[in-house]
């Protein structure tokens, strides 16, 4: 069978990612809700099973945007730009989820929904940068200039990701430090909680992969329509 250069429908892998992700989402929720309560925070800590994967996938998505923006600038292939766009959009959704769950957690813990401490501030800035990314994309008509300008934001904006991640260590911040520290590899967490967290992380990653593939395809279809 001949392979079509630009398929009209999502391929099998996309459906596998999406299907498996959606199927396992209730399992992840079950694990999260049956995980033992935290010593200090009690049942409130369970919001972490949404909050942490959301934030991580947000970071990961922006990293993918960064990579594909670089690729686009050096290869000038519109496909790379479409992946960057898709990843930024999904990243914004996950980051939004992390922000909202964080606020819901902060209200009973700190007494306020929002406070201007370093982690929250840097995350809000990160969010604003990628909102700007889409404002920019919407504002430029010429497709090539739009892709170039967006790629530049995708690259320059990424610097905020490591700063946001490290902010809880660099400044003595109100936000608690990482329970799974990627820079030192230390884990400060009960195995039962860790299992639930990692499972949710896995589910979110599946969903992310599925969404990005799906969104890139949509972008490709849009681009084809624009050209025609």
């Amino acid at each position: 069978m001949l392979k079509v250069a630009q398929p009209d429908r999502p391929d099998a892998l996309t459906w596998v990612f999406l299907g498996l992700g959606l199927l396992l989402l209730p399992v992840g929720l079950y694990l999260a809700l049956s995980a033992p309560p935290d010593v200090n925070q009690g049942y409130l800590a369970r919001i972490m099973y949404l909050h942490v994967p959301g934030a991580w996938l947000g970071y990961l998505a922006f990293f993918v945007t960064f990579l594909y923006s670089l690729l686009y600038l050096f290869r000038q292939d519109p496909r790379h730009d479409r992946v960057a766009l898709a990843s930024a959009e999904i990243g914004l959704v996950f980051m939004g989820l992390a922000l909202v769950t964080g606020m819901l957690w902060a209200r009973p813990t700190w007494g306020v929904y929002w406070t201007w401490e370093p982690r929250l501030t840097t995350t809000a800035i990160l969010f604003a940068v990628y909102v700007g990314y889409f404002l920019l994309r919407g504002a430029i008509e010429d497709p090539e200039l739009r892709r170039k300008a967006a790629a530049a934001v995708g690259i320059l904006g990424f610097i905020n990701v490591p700063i946001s991640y490290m902010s809880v260590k660099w400044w003595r911040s109100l936000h608690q430090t990482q329970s799974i520290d990627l820079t030192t590899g230390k884990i400060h967490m009960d195995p039962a909680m860790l299992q639930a967290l990692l499972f949710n992380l896995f589910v979110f990653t599946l969903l992310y992969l599925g969404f990005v593939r799906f969104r890139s395809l949509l972008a490709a279809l849009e681009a084809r329509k624009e050209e025609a």
Partner: protein
Amino acid sequence: MKLPVEGWPEAAGQGRVGVVRRVVLLALRDLRLEVRDRAGLLSILAFFAVMLFIMALALGPEEEPLRRAAPGVLWVALAFGSTLLSTRAFALEVEEGTLDDLLLAPGGKEWIYFGKLLFQMLLLLPLAALALLMAAGLFYLPLERLFLLFLTLVLGVLGYASVATFYAGLLARLRGREVLLPLLLFSLVVPVVLASVRATTGLAEGLPVAEISDWWQLLLVFDVVYLTASALLFPVVMEG
């Protein structure tokens, strides 16, 4: 009208000296045009004056709230004011059709970026110093540590100008760039403005230097990253 520039370094083979001369020549030429034109400079000065005056009226007249607000007001004024000038780095080149001439010059293209950046810095720094004096007058901002305040100004303005120059070049040929550029710049330079405000606040409150140096380090990191990334990306995005 194209200004004749004496001793324009010819080829790429001249090495580092040639490139530095090119950068300086480009910056000085732009500065000369800007100073002759006056309209941009006068408008930004008027903007600073009006903005600081209105903020002082809105927040005053007690001394304490004014003093507390001073660093924030100063940097907001600088951030907004600089956007008025950011498009000017490439506006004249496009109007006169000389941008292509610049891009066609043999050798790399980074020097154009650095020349324009130097121009922006030479333009913005005196203006920023003036704004600092105005803020000191209207908002009781203490000027005892003038040198450190100026260091903060340099670091902050450099972080801002490095991104602004890059995007001004990228969007030079785009219609409606005056609206788009500030929108885009603000989200990228928020960390720079934030760190500058914190450093200035620390200086105004008389904190020891050790406590403020964190913010300078952050500013420096942003400056270096933005500057390097912009200089590397500039030739890539200006091609074609």
